[in-house]
């Protein structure tokens, strides 16, 4: 299978008082055309940083140090000149962010914001762009699309704004959609609508989706493959159904139990401790201080990624020990 996006040894760090703080370390993955890959992790896992570095959207002022390789259809995107990169955002890579109330511009109408990419990237004239904008709003199931064009973001509810964001991201029919926590700010009944909308559009448009989320339930219901990240590194990767039924990394297991709200006698299963901050990561496996299966060897070196099942890889030297009872 040819891959649409190939990421190799991606490292992203941010300079701080104590030197460069590593946010993402040595990340490899690929996405095939039409596939949904989810990256799941808690805050500080590096999942959003990794996603933002693909279309070159990391904030300049934080002076990110990026190395490795990000190839979109064979074309290297890291260190690509800005003008060239800008031409790719839209037709090649579309993006949806978490917070629909801050990612739309409050002083421009919905119509103007949807038409902008249509006019700059697709070369449509004003009238054609407006017609296409109405089509797009219909596609994302916004009611009364003609009237919405003249409205401002504050006139819309959170769910409607996120639909508008999706319409903008889809305006140039991107081959890859990067969705960074697209439903986290929404209520559950609206979240379900938006997720169903994204997967429906993906199937009909044949687009690949890179979904960033902290919610394993969302992963189960939308993704084909999943990457679990912890403290800046990939700890497990594989087909969703496999990973969420037979995880081999103890962190994935803990996350899974927490997400299922599994409990006994009124208490929920918890992972003890906290995610170590970037400047205090232990030398070996970053999960070792919180891990019930940890042994001395876990502290010696960062465990290598290796195969643990069909299509499944994990970074744990004790993956075969199985799930503790």
């Amino acid at each position: 299978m040819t891959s649409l996006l190939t990421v190799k040894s991606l490292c992203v760090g941010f300079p701080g008082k104590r030197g460069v703080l590593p946010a993402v370390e040595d990340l490899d993955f690929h996405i095939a055309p039409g596939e949904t890959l989810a990256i799941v992790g808690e805050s500080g896992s590096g999942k959003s940083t990794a996603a933002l570095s693909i279309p070159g959207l990391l904030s300049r002022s934080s002076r990110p140090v990026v190395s490795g390789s990000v190839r979109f259809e064979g074309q290297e995107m890291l260190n690509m000149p800005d003008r060239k990169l800008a031409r790719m955002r839209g037709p090649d890579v579309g993006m949806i962010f978490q917070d629909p109330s801050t990612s739309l511009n409050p002083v421009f109408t919905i119509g103007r914001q949807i038409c902008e990419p249509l006019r700059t990237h697709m070369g449509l004239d004003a009238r054609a762009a407006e017609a296409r904008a109405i089509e797009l709003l219909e596609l994302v199931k916004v009611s009364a699309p003609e009237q919405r064009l003249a409205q401002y973001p504050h006139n819309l509810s959170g769910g409607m704004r996120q639909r508008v964001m999706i319409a903008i991201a889809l305006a140039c029919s991107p081959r890859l959609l990067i969705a960074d926590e697209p439903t986290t700010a929404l209520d559950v009944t609206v979240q379900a609508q938006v997720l169903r909308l994204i997967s429906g559009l993906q199937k009909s448009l044949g687009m690949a989706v890179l979904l960033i989320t902290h919610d394993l339930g969302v992963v189960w219901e939308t993704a084909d493959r999943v990457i679990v990240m912890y403290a800046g590194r990939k700890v497990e990767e594989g087909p969703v159904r496999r990973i969420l039924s037979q995880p081999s990394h103890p962190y994935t297991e803990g996350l899974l139990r927490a997400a299922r709200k599994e409990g006994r006698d009124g208490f929920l299963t918890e992972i003890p401790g906290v995610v170590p901050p970037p400047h205090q990561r232990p030398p070996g496996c970053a999960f070792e201080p919180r891990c019930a299966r940890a042994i001395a060897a876990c502290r010696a070196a960062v465990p290598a990624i290796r195969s643990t099942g069909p299509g499944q890889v994990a970074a744990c030297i004790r993956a075969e020990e199985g799930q503790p009872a």
Partner: protein
Amino acid sequence: MTLLKVHKLVRHFPVSRGFGSSAIVRAVDGVDLEIAPGETLAIVGESGCGKSSLARCVAGLDTATSGKVEVEGTDSADMLTADPMRFRRSIQMVFQDPYSSVNPRRRIGEIIGDGLRLHKLVPRAQRAERVRELLEQVGLAADYADRYPHELSGGQRQRVSIARALAVNPRLIVCDEPVSALDVSVQAQVMNLLVRLQRDHGVAYLFISHDLALVRHIAHKVAVMYLGQVVESGDAAIFDQGFLHPYAQSLFDAAPRIGRPEGEEVELLEGDVPSPISPPSGCRFHTRCPQTIDRCKVEAPDLRPVAGRDVRCHRAEEMLARMMPPQAEAAFGTG
């Protein structure tokens, strides 16, 4: 003996709509609740359902437009005027955002010790000792007393908020989404802390949440709210039996669930929650309800007892008949 009794509580907010016209947001519109000592009542609903406004009225941070809140048989409005300190010792609150609910300029020890100082609960010489005890109870090391909030993670700050609430030995803690700003692995730690404290100290919780799965393990009673009203309430057994109100059902089904079989079609609600400024006529849920009949559009249903719980739906009996045991099991089994 009831600890907290909320009777026909109403909270309306007047809002200006510009050019001199005004409107009323019906945030809470006639809610009745009861909590016994040592019990957890979970209020669940989406944004705009009035759950936080209700919480603030109960905690005495806001005044109800009408209706009554009684704490151990005394009207809370009277108590707040006559003896506000006694009221604050009875009811404490833990807020959603652990970043904005503690003062960044004060040390953790001062934040927790304030209640002890203001309520003159322990002599000054013993205050530091009591703060250490409280820190230990919430799972923080004693040396955290000298730190500032910015040195703590979100989960740790939420523990500080809990210790601060606990300092005055309250009978009831109002928890407004206490874990929704935290990562899943930390959520379980904080939830377990709340359960442990309840078992040790007999404190009752009014637990506000948007997540039915989360409250399932800790709630003794649950009430689901929609547009300012309770639509279904009962004891925790309804989690196993299944909800009868179509909104409560949708809220439960819409949450993404690991292990849901592929192709299992979930009926999704259409549209968003209507504005609480002009709630729909008749049943407030009829605009989104998959079960709407003509009667729902004109006649507002009352909250009435059906099958051991209270439901605000004209068609509750039909829903009950439709809910066959195996279906209920499939819909509510975990994972």
